[in-house]
């Protein structure tokens, strides 16, 4: 149902609310084997923005079902880029750690930008930054994301369906005693 009327909808007809609620899950598609450690954990480099950018693409689970997310990810596949699964996180956890998420339906309905607050600065081609602090700055932020996101490897990437039984949506924890409450 979601796949039928949301995935194909344009920015003007997108029925997904622009506001991203705290309870939403967002998914980042994983494409390269070198972004997965031998232990099966995602590397921090999987969260690196494109050159000159400070944000990475994610998909909003309430707007796109697991199957629609997979469909979108597979549409980005090239001969050198193979779909392997998703890294998932909840919006409120990302916000708690200081990250901003903004709907960007101009790309497609259900697309959002996760802002890191640090830009992957352009530099001399084929050379590392002369100042190693620039590596550390971006790496620290990407490592924070690595710790927040959980990797769901797709064991049947060729299939159209999403076969993993693990939930994509977790309950948002109730406020702890002592947390500030709205009057």
């Amino acid at each position: 149902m979601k796949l039928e009327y949301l995935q194909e909808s344009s920015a003007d007809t997108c029925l997904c609310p622009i506001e991203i609620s705290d309870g939403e899950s967002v998914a980042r598609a994983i494409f390269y084997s070198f972004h997965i450690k031998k232990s099966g954990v995602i590397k921090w480099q999987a969260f690196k923005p494109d050159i000159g950018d400070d944000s990475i693409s994610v998909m909003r689970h309430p707007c796109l079902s697991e199957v629609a997310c997979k469909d979108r990810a597979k549409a980005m596949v090239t001969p050198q880029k193979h779909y392997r699964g998703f890294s998932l996180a909840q919006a409120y956890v990302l916000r708690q750690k200081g990250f901003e998420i903004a709907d960007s339906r101009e790309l497609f309905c259900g697309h959002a930008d996760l802002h890191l607050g640090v830009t992957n600065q352009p530099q001399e081609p084929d050379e590392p930054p002369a100042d190693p602090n620039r590596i550390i700055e971006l790496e620290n932020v990407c490592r924070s994301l690595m710790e927040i996101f959980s990797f769901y490897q797709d064991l049947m990437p060729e299939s159209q369906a999403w076969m993993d039984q693990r939930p994509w949506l977790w309950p948002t924890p109730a406020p702890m005693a002592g947390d500030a409450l709205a009057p």
Partner: protein
Amino acid sequence: MTSLATCALTLSTLHPLDASVTVAAGGEAMHPCGSLGIGSARGGWLDLDADMVAYYVDGATWHIGQLTETVEVRKAIGALRELSDGWHGKSSRAPSEQVLHNAQKMAMTAVSAGLRVPEITPNPHGTVSLEWETVHGTLHLEIGKRRLSGYLRTPGNRPTLIAADGGLDLPYFKSVSALLFPSNAVSVRFGVWNSALSLGV
């Protein structure tokens, strides 16, 4: 170029105790069979050109075979050759042959110094990152065409910044190996060899 397998057997027959072919550990040199290699901590070469082959002298006999770690490095670097420009956003660059050569040489020098095989990851700017991470610390090197940049971090300390033209030498990696893998013995690292017969020579 004579294959390494044939070369090793020939040398074994003609010069079983010839030490003149030994190159300095960590140094890059041509060995007698015309292939480019780097000197290992144990003498002999880890070959950079021949596919999945390395050999060394143990004092009396030439050995040839596959060192698990070098096979793994070569495989990981080889996989990056499939990338083309634009693999990570429009402006991203695939690593050039020179960058891959430099990264492979650094990784193999590190392995020959006793470090484990690093996590090998390309970067959008066309560089390749080598990373070692243990409970004792992290070494991250970003390798380019002409220079490398990175850091060494140990728990509770500020990172030591690294920026160098060219590469790092074997003594440096030995010191890092002692830091990150304190219980690692070099003799164990060189324990996985296939016999010449298993290579069909």
